[in-house]
């Protein structure tokens, strides 16, 4: 009897402790959350101020007067229309290319038998870890030889295939039950029809993961475009944003820079919120790091 009371007591105590802990965790998570969101919040707030508002002391978070014209001004001052077009074109081409080449090769590695297959696959895996820093110089010299410097081909064509995407596709396709394919083959489907009608529809989650990763990475890509894209009319958004803030001015136009940053960031945020499920799964299953 005494024991039962004791157990009940301690259970009650545990419940209390859990509630208290939950509350504490919420407080900590919220504080950290505010720290994480603060730079974005200030970016948006500052994008609606004028320069005087930004330099104001003490600072105010909500702008006194809302300067919506910052956005149009930043947009024209940086030729962001061209940048958006270039970035969108490059991202679309690279995403499409990688999805096609990676799924085709993934199917080949996962399902078809032919001599040399596993050796080639091993080569893919071993070269996956070569740092991109090593490729910069030889790839640049190659682009010069092709006459591709300052053309969009230079940021599209070398990235139409992906070793890690191929690896991911292969690993995913290996897990698809063979029976489904066998049935299609018996019904007289060729290899391509089997791939198209059976394998691809089943691979959709992995394809979505690859697509959203590639989109974010391509949209955010900076170092390689910085090297190969010198002419203004081929520049992508990150290049324009970076060069905008380096333009010499008496006073850095922070309000315009913040407006420009806001509309460069927004498309990736949308892509992330829409495809978060696939993105998170991609990180957890393949451990490939996206973004910066």
């Amino acid at each position, binding site marked *: 009897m005494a024991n039962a009371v004791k157990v009940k007591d301690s259970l009650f105590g545990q419940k209390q402790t859990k509630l208290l802990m939950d509350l504490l965790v919420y407080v900590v998570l919220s504080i950290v959350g505010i720290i994480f969101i603060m730079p974005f919040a200030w970016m948006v707030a500052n994008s609606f101020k004028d320069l005087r508002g930004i330099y104001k002391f003490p600072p105010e978070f909500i702008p006194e007067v809302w300067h919506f014209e910052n956005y149009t001004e930043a947009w024209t001052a940086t030729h962001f229309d061209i940048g958006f077009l270039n970035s969108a074109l490059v991202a679309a081409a690279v995403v499409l290319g990688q999805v096609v080449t990676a799924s085709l090769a993934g199917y080949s590695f996962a399902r078809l*038998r032919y001599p040399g297959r596993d050796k080639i696959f091993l080569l893919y895996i071993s070269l996956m870890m070569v740092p991109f820093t090593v490729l910069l110089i030889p790839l640049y010299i190659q682009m010069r030889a092709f006459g591709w410097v300052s053309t969009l081909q230079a940021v599209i064509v*070398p990235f139409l295939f992906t070793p890690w995407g191929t690896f991911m596709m292969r690993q995913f396709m290996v897990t698809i039950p063979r029976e489904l394919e066998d049935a299609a083959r018996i019904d007289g489907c060729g290899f*391509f029809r089997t791939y198209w009608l059976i394998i691809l529809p089943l691979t959709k989650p992995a394809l979505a993961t690859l697509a959203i990763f590639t989109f974010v990475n391509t949209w955010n890509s900076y170092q390689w475009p910085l090297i190969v894209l010198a002419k203004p009319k081929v520049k992508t958004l990150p290049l324009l944003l970076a060069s905008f803030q380096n333009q010499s001015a008496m006073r850095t136009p922070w309000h315009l820079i913040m407006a420009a940053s806001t509309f460069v960031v927004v498309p990736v945020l949308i892509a992330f919120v829409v495809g978060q499920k696939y993105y998170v799964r991609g990180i957890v299953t393949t451990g490939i790091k996206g973004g910066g």
Partner: protein
Amino acid sequence: MAANLAGASPRQKRGGIEDFKRAFTGLRRGETIAGYLFLAPNFIGFIIFLLFPICFAFVIMLTDWSLAKPPAFVGLENFETMVNDRLFWKSLGNSFYYTFVAVPTGIFIAFWLALALNRKMRGIIFFRTIYFLPQITLTVAAATIWRWIYQPEIGMINHMLDWFGIDGPKWIHDTKWAMPSVIIMSNWQGIGFAMLILLAGLQGIPEEYYEAASIDGASGWQRMRYVTLPMLTPALFFVVVTSLISAFQSFDQFFVLTQGGPAHATTPLTLYIFQNAFTFFKMGYGAALASVVFVIILIITIVQWRLARRWVIGFESDDD
């Protein structure tokens, strides 16, 4: 990996001319041809844009090549130059400073965040999303925002320090504070990745283990020490290796936030390579410097795999 490969094709025999011939005749002919055709678009890209450049890099590092003139073969001269190059050692030191401070601090914070997010509470996904947003923000934009945050007079941080009567440092304009500034920004941006992997690791620990530990009378701290930490070691290992590798290759945040300054205080090896190759057009020297990045990343990976046997639970190395 090797086991996985073998498992996928149990009937595959060792290659050889006989097998090769057989693959192109008889029943298997169609499959062989299809296999090569499916692989072709990818493999062509692989050869032209990955395999060839890597081999080419080994040639370039042995030359003196400004692109204006044809390359001159100089043997190992670039590596001799490197040994006596003060800026090379400085940038190498910066790369190590950045990598070995940013990665441990980032993982430490990510670990506690993941633990907090692993509780069964409402709104966890919301917080997870918030912590992950900086990760997908392009580094150029993130660094742009942080450049303003770090402004000594008008920036956010010094304003806030001012409320507490603290006179903030000059952050990215101060040789001592510039690197910590980059590290803080990088961790703000990158923590979401480590947090997500660790969270997945935590969620993979079976509930029964904790129950068993509780029945044995383990305290909260003991459960953490003897259940959570050991079970999390595979995820931790993974996060440590990938974070070290990617930190060593960081470029964007340095280029936008500090441009390597002041006084080379934040010039990592990657930025030094970029300057040599694309500002001074020393392709040979740049390629030689890049080979150092390659070797260091290789060493980090190998050392981690060797050490892993000592601290990662259930770790089996492929190489023996």
